[in-house]
Structures are given as structure tokens and as C-alpha cells.
């Protein structure tokens, strides 16, 4: 009766391991599915996209069925879920990859010294450029940053250093959160309505664009700076107070320098965000083919508005040229925005304060 040694051979004993698919089962199933997709699409003569869809379908059906037969229902459901969840990621990557590919392949052809050095002044077909739009973007964005960065950082300082537990601080935190959701075009309308009060109807100014962008930028700066200031350990502040340093000097000399890397990262990301903003500038900064370096008078074109105008209202005869301009400008804009993003990450990673732990 005591057949301790022979347990594995008896058929009625409970198995210690549930049956499961072989270790490389998933990979095998994927190879199988790709084969099915390729075969079916060859037979019915469909393209590569259809082949991919069929392969995916085959995988989603075949692997769970196999799993159901071997492992049982719960494991099969788990495999379906895993497949679907990974598929969502793959699906989400399609727009990113195709967008970057499209912009690079269509935009790189037109890039040249001439494209960067010419404006669209007196240009009808070929020979135009984005000189004026690049400077417009630089000026409008720089002014927006000049307005938003001090206000944003000071507000963050208020929230973290002065306002803890106060009602005003709670209200402002909430309003800043809500403000991040203001549609960009509404910010443009706000700036327009504001400047109409001063300059009369039909006003178009570069500085108005900066004001509109500030409305979008301030909440981003506040949020990121606030998070960074919160990370500064209280011990640093207490040590400073203990040495008799006044509160404002503690903030300026101890708290802000400790958090500066994170704050700069946040500001850079905010700049990247508003540099690509179109709608408010379309409304308040207007559109011109000429180079205008003075934000306080007349219209100013920025890169995004330039792209929009080139596509939305090109002169009838030169549709193709203007589409090329738009793609070239889009490539330039995406490059600038991506560089700013990378820069922000590098700053954040390199200058991050060494954590005490």
C-alpha cells in the first residue's frame, strides 16, 4: 500500500503540475500564424496589410484554441487577454511610425539652404521658404516663455512654500488642473478679445500670440515645477532656517537650485508643446508671407500656421509646390519639437539631484 516511490506511475494520483503549452509555444504559434497569413493572402491575392490582418486573426484564434485543448479555459482566456493587450500597443505604434515615416520621406526632399533662407514674399510657385515662419515661431514662443516661466515658477513656489493647507492654494491647484484642459483655440479667442479692447477690432499681433500661448503654457509650467519643488527634502529647508537664513533666500538659494534640473525639464517640455500650437496663432497672430521681426506690430507667421495655410488655402495653380512647402515645414517643426523633448530628457537625467537613498 505504501507506494511512496511509485506515485508518479499510478494513474489516479493528483499531478503536481497542470499541463501547459511547451515553452516555445507562443513563438511557434506566431510563426504558424504568419505562415497562414502569407499563404492565404497569396492564394486570394491580397496585399501585405491584409496578410498581416489575417496572420493576427489566425494567432488570436489558434493560440487560445490550442491552449484551451491543453491547459483549460482560464489559461486560454488569459492568453487571449495577453494577445489583445499587446496588440493594442502594436496598433498604437502604427500612427507614430507611419507619421514619422511620412513626414520624413515627403519633407526631406525640399529641405535646402534656399528653403531656410527665403520667405514667401513675392513667391507664387517655386523658390519659397520658411525663413519668416521660423523667426515667427522663435519670437512668439520666446515671448510666451518669458511671460509664463516667471509666473509659473512663482505660482509653484507659492503652492509649495507658502500655500500649504490654505484654501487659496487648493483652489489654485484645482484651477491650474482645469486650465490645462482649455482648448487652444479658446485661448486664442481670449487673446483676441483682450487685444480688441486695446487696439480695436481686426487686431493681429505677434505678442497676442504669445499671450495666448502663455495661457496654455502657464499651467504646464506650474504643474511640473510644483512636482519638482515638492521633491526637495524638508531637511534642506530646515537646515537653512536653522542657520538664520530668511525664507525668501532659502527658496532662492536652496530650494530652487535643488529642483532646477526638473524645473528646466518641465519648462523645455512646455516650450516644445506650445511651439507646435496652431489654432490660437491663426486667430491672433494671423498670417503673412513676409518676414516680420517686430511682435508689437502687424501679423506674424509661425511654422504651424504656415503649414496650415499652405494646405488649406494654396493659390490654385501651385497646389503641389505648396504641399511640398507644408511637408518641409512639418519636418522642420517635428525636428525642433523632438529635439526639445530629447533635450528635456537629457537635462532631467544628467542634472537630476542625487537622491539620498
Amino acid at each position, binding site marked *: 500500500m505504501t507506494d511512496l516511490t511509485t506515485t508518479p506511475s499510478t494513474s489516479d494520483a493528483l499531478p503536481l503540475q497542470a499541463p501547459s503549452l511547451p515553452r516555445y509555444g507562443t513563438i511557434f504559434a506566431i510563426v504558424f500564424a504568419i505562415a497562414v497569413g502569407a499563404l492565404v493572402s497569396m492564394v486570394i491575392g491580397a496585399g501585405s496589410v491584409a496578410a498581416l490582418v489575417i496572420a493576427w486573426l489566425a494567432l488570436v484564434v489558434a493560440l487560445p484554441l490550442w491552449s484551451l485543448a491543453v491547459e483549460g479555459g482560464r489559461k486560454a482566456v488569459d492568453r487571449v487577454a495577453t494577445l489583445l493587450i499587446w496588440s493594442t500597443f502594436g496598433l498604437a505604434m502604427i500612427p507614430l511610425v507611419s507619421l514619422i515615416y511620412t513626414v520624413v520621406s515627403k519633407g526631406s526632399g525640399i529641405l535646402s539652404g534656399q528653403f531656410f533662407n527665403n520667405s514667401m514674399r513675392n513667391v507664387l510657385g517655386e523658390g519659397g521658404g520658411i525663413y519668416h515662419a521660423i523667426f515667427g515661431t522663435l519670437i512668439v514662443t520666446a515671448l510666451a516663455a518669458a511671460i509664463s516661466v516667471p509666473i509659473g515658477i512663482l505660482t509653484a513656489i507659492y503652492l509649495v512654500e507658502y500655500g500649504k493647507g490654505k484654501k487659496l492654494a487648493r483652489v489654485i491647484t484645482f484651477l491650474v488642473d482645469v486650465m490645462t484642459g482649455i*482648448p487652444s483655440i479658446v485661448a486664442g479667442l481670449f487673446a483676441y478679445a483682450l487685444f480688441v479692447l486695446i487696439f480695436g477690432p481686426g487686431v493681429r499681433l505677434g505678442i497676442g500670440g504669445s499671450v495666448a500661448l502663455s495661457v496654455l503654457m502657464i499651467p504646464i509650467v506650474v504643474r511640473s515645477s510644483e512636482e519638482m519643488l515638492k521633491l526637495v527634502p524638508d531637511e534642506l529647508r530646515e537646515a537653512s532656517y536653522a542657520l538664520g537664513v530668511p525664507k525668501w533666500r532659502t527658496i532662492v538659494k536652496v530650494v530652487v537650485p535643488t529642483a532646477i534640473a526638473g524645473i528646466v525639464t518641465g519648462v523645455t517640455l512646455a516650450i516644445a508643446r506650445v511651439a507646435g500650437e496652431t489654432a490660437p496663432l491663426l486667430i491672433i497672430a494671423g498670417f503673412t508671407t513676409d518676414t516680420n521681426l517686430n511682435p508689437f506690430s502687424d501679423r506674424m507667421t509661425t511654422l504651424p500656421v504656415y503649414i496650415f495655410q499652405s494646405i488649406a488655402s494654396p493659390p490654385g495653380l501651385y497646389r503641389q509646390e505648396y504641399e511640398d512647402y507644408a511637408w518641409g515645414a512639418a519636418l522642420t517643426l517635428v525636428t525642433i519639437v523632438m529635439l526639445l523633448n530629447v533635450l528635456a530628457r537629457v537635462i532631467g537625467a544628467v542634472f537630476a539631484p542625487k537622491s539620498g537613498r
Partner: protein
Amino acid sequence: MAGTVQESPTEPDPGGPGGSVVTTDDGGSTGRVGDRVFAGLSVGSAVLIVIVLAGVAIFLLEQGLPALGNSGESAYGKDNIWAYVGPLLFGTLLAALIAMIIATPLAIGVALVISHYAPRRIATAFGWLIDLLAAIPSVVYGLWGINFLALNLVPVYNWMGDNLGWLPFFEGPVPNSGRTMMTGGIVLAVMALPIITAICREIFAQTPKMHQEAALALGATRWEMIRMTVFPYARSGMFSAVLLGLGRALGETMAIALVLPPSVLVSLNLITAEGASSTIAANIANNFGNASGSKVDTLIFSGLVLFVITFAVNFLGRAIAARGQVKG
């Protein structure tokens, strides 16, 4: 030495209500000018934000409300202002609804990949990739939508029109340009995806480890563990994430302005060009440059309507998120 160290903490009076934080002394550093100036500056800029937000509402009201009586020419040929704004509002909501239907499951899946499925090192890189999606300017999305996505979707729409044409949504006729409501919704979905993902993945990652390990220890599969521990914990967060994504989709301008042909009418037909309704934001972008006089007021009024709706949606989203935080 020791004397100065003990002397200077003039602030151990527990700062203000809430009291638990030692470092706050409510700016009461006994009358030093620098302190008062700096405190004043920071309070001032904080209050300025409130003023700006109030200013947005006030200026829009001031410029927009006169348009309430507009009709005929100044309401772009409609009988009254609502006949003009109404269809645009419908288009706005429809486009955002399509975007949410597509983006929500995708975003939750992507967030799960980043928080639970991918190995940690790869997950960070994946997070960056999704952030890149958020960084691309909206006008570039529009350009891509009109020149790449729309054209490539035409065969899909044709198939839908042939096979699902009995549904009012997919009646057709499909335009060769592919510039339809559906295309607009898909572009909006791509743009709202990173926002929803960012919030969801943060909340998924906060699910108590103990709950997850307990579920796994009881023999749950990974999916069962996620269904039993992660989703219940993150429910309110997911809801507010969707609302915030909705706020983005409602206010998005350029992508729709480029993708959808401008028209003002109510139509449920998603895959046709003539019958597609435009959105408020796109309509403003398309018409503001040429508008003058009372037409400007009409457009600003439609902007006010958009502002009120997005404000309400964001307000609700943030309120739910805040409540969830207190509970969690």
C-alpha cells in the same frame, strides 16, 4: 555656534491650519522686506492665474454674448445663432465620441503593457514612445490625416459601405479623398490616446502590490489578477482619464480643420464627405481669418460654448480624480 543654531528657528509655531508641516511659517518672518516682497510676488502670480482664468470667461462672455441675437447674414445665413452653433456642437460631440470609443480600450491596453506586461526596462522606453505621440504638433497630425490616413482608409470605408451600408452610420457614398467624420475621429483618437494612457498607467502602477500578489498566490492568471485587483482599484482614475482625454478631443482644432471639409449640418453618416458635420473649433479656425463685424461675435460665441463644455468635462474629470486620491 550652538547659540545661533538654537536661536534662529523662530518658526516652530505650527504654520497655519493643517499644522503638520514644520517648514511653513506663513511668510511671517518678522517683517523682513525681502521676505514680504517675495511672498507678495508669489501670491501675486498665483492670484494672476485665477484672474486669467476668470478673464478667459469674462472676455468670451463680453465678446460672445452680443451674438445671441444674431440671425441671417451675421449667423452665416442661419435663422438664429443656435441653428448655426447647434450642428457644430453636434459635430464636436460626435467626433469626440468616435475618438473615445476607439481610444479608450487602446489606451487601457497600452497602459497595461507599460505597467504590467512589458519588462521594466522596455516599459520605460515604451512610455517614451507614447509620450512622443503626445509631443507631435496637432497640425502635423492634420497633415498626416489628410495625406496619408484618409487615403489609406478609403478601401476600408468602401468595404464598410458595401457590407454595413444598412446601418445609417455607414451609408456612404465614400469620397475618394477619404476626408470623413470617421477619419477625423480616428485622428482625434490618436491624439487623445497618450493623455489617457499616461494617467491610466500611473494609476495601474499604484495598485497595491499585496493585492496583486495575493491574487497570484491564489492561482489567478495574470488577466484574472488584473481584473480582480487592478481594475477595481483604478476605476475612478480610468474614468477621469477618459474624461480628460475627452476634453482634449473636444477642443482639438487643427486636425479636424484639415481633415473635415467645412460644412454646418447634422448627420450621423460617418463615411461620407458631403454629409459630415464640422466641429466648433475647426469651424472657428476655418472662418476666423475672413470674418468681420458681427460674424466674429458669432464665432466667439461658439468658442464660448466650447469653453463651457470642455470646462465642465475637465472639471468633472479632475473632481473625480481628486476624490479617488483621497480615498486611495
